């Protein structure tokens, strides 16, 4: 019987939980289009762990936990992506190393070997023990007043606090991330939950600070590049973000279609993107889903740039100061609403605008001045736009229902590896 099941199961997509280092998330995202594998949102649904690129030091411990949460028999594949350091191989000694550009054949092979019994499942990597000794002052190990508070077994218990209706109710301190699929890689949110409402929030950035990005925007800091290439990359970045955001909003199949579009767009394809905007509007992504969520007023936007600022009505864009863009007739787009819907629309429109610009740009070049408008905002040598944007998160999510908070963070398009210097703990409470 089990042999028959295994034979049938060979036809199934391999269930893969992918953990991407903060420098490899673009490569990892493309695997959503691959045939023969299915990326899961939780390690419990997978039995193959794929580690893409080099993991940030702060992600190793959560990755070990995720490994042990995979369904047995489990296996690990490390898709090296030309990385050199050995942090992954040291921590995942049994990982199957894959140097190929396409990890899908290796993932299929591991999946099939596991099913056929040719590959032994990996044992858990962490000992099955409590994270800390039982510690508490009360008879039940609790540390606060009455039955609440304290950290028995190293885990914070519920405590009491005022809720938004003026009652004293339990709140639960929990950490969301850094591998929580909807949030950007490396962002760990420490929230105090009352029911599904966030009453206090802090975040920690577990992504390694990237010293030198390899994107065209980083290259444009030092040398002049073709506007055509730069704007095409901007449109791709916005569409890839859109694909992620649409997936979090529940539409996995539409997300796949947008991701495929992101790979196919060419200079001059602005109309294809405007068609996407109409599709999203008709399907309720803006008005039913994101309207009024996470409103950012202009006075809260100190240091914030890029689409997030422009969606709140600030007309700031480094491109306006460049002669080449002036010759192309560039004008920054802005909106007034400042909510998540506005940020979605802003990025979609900027993607269309970028493709229009790329179509007209010819041989015009830009860059080399040490500052460039990247898809997330103003990028300078040593400082990325996500630093300022990430700082908005704690005060923004307090008081929100959990799903709204996730939608809000997603709408900010953070890249935690450029959110530096490490201003680690920013917190807020209601």
């Amino acid at each position, binding site marked *: 019987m089990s042999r028959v099941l295994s034979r049938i199961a060979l036809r*199934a997509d391999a269930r893969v939980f992918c953990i991407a280092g903060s420098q490899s998330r673009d490569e990892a995202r493309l695997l959503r289009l691959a045939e023969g594998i299915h990326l899961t949102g939780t390690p*419990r649904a997978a039995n193959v762990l794929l580690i893409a690129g080099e993991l940030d030091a702060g992600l190793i411990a959560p990755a070990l936990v995720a490994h042990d949460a995979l369904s047995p028999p489990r296996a690990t594949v490390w898709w090296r992506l030309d990385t050199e350091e050995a942090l992954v191989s040291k921590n995942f000694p049994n990982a199957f190393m894959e140097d190929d550009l396409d990890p899908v054949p290796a993932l299929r092979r591991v999946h099939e070997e596991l099913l056929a019994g040719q590959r032994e499942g990996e044992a858990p990597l962490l000992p099955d023990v409590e994270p800390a000794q039982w510690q508490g002052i009360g008879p039940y190990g609790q540390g606060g007043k009455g039955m609440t508070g304290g950290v028995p077994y190293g885990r914070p218990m519920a405590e009491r606090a005022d809720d938004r209706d003026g009652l004293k109710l339990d709140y639960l301190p*929990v950490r969301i991330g850094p591998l929580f699929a909807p949030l950007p890689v490396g962002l760990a949110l420490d929230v105090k939950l009352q029911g599904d409402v966030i009453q206090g929030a802090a975040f920690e950035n577990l992504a390694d600070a990237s010293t030198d990005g390899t994107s065209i925007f980083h290259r444009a800091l030092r040398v002049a590049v073709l506007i055509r290439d730069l704007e095409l990359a901007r449109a791709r970045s916005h569409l890839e973000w859109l694909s992620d955001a649409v997936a979090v909003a529940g539409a996995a199949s539409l997300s796949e279609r947008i991701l*495929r579009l992101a790979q196919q767009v060419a200079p001059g394809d602005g109309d294809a993107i405007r068609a996407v905007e109409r599709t999203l509007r008709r399907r309720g992504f803006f008005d039913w889903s994101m309207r009024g*969520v996470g409103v950012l007023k202009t006075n809260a936007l100190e240091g914030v740039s890029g689409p997030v600022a422009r969606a709140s009505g600030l007309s700031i864009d480094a491109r306006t100061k460049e002669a080449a863009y002036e010759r192309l007739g560039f004008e920054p787009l802005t909106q007034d609403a400042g909510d998540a819907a506005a940020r979605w629309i802003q990025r979609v429109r900027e993607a269309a605008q970028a493709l229009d610009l790329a179509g007209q740009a010819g041989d015009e070049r830009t860059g080399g001045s040490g500052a460039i408008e990247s898809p997330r905002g103003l990028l300078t040598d040593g400082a990325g736009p996500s630093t300022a944007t990430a700082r908005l998160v704690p005060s923004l999510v307090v008081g929100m229902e959990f*799903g709204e908070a996730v939608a809000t963070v997603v709408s900010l398009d953070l890249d935690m590896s450029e959110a530096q210097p490490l201003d680690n703990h920013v917190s807020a409470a209601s």
Partner: protein
Amino acid sequence: MRPYLSPPLAVITMIGVLIAGSYAVAVLEEIAGTLVSRRPLRLTYVFWAPLATAALLLTQGRTSTERPDAQAWALAPALLAGLAAVGLAVIPIDQNTSVADPAAGFVLYSAAISYVMVAVYLHGWSANSTLPLIGAYRFIAQAFAFQIPFLLVLLAPALPAESLAISDIVEAQESLWNVVRQPLGLPIFLVVSAAATFSLPLDFPDAADLAGGTSSEVSASHRLAWRGARAGLLVMVAAMGASAFLGGWQGPWLPGWLWVILKTLLLLVILIASSHTFARLRIERFVVLAWVVLLPLSLVNIFFAGALLL
């Protein structure tokens, strides 16, 4: 008193309907996903994928969270599947064939729908983990909002039949189906059905923004059971919609049972297609929509259904 299937045959029929129904749901999901994502449609893959996935989940080992309420956790999918079976049992398969067609079939069906809240809450709570718990909380708000409109909109078809037995409700549609007689009924029913089966755009307890919510911690056979039970629930509401609004077994040329299957499939296609079309509503919006729009509309629906009888 109508003839029932003999008990052994009834049990086999119910199991068969649940399994075949879940398979149909999985295939329709696969087709809808393929069409929306604009992947090339490979029919052998579409028909094999659900079976292969089920086999894969059955070969895997189960994992556990830290200190779950293990019995309740294992019970939740069984409870949900059981509720789907109870609801399906009261729906006649043909004019003279049913598994159970009690005089108060509507009441039994409604009771099954109310207990969905218990199954989902149990599933989320007993995992002893954050994301499932948030999913469980969400479903309480959702369930309070959809339950009353759900019952009211199903009560309206009982008025022209002057009976709470589903077969009488079907028979009363011989001259005119309720989808025409009560034009508000089916649209409201479809919305509350999406909520009751926690399908997109109303999949709050198991949503992607919770990495799967109440099912984010389940693995292997447990995951298969939960997905199967939820698919069974979809079949249960679609079959009820077919009987209460689309005239059940009534139709020309084809045998009655085939009409029941075709009409159920039609409603499944509508429910699954809309789950691949619309963005997830904000939960607050849905609760407001349910109390402020759906509830009054379903009362208006009942009022007109009653007025037509005078």
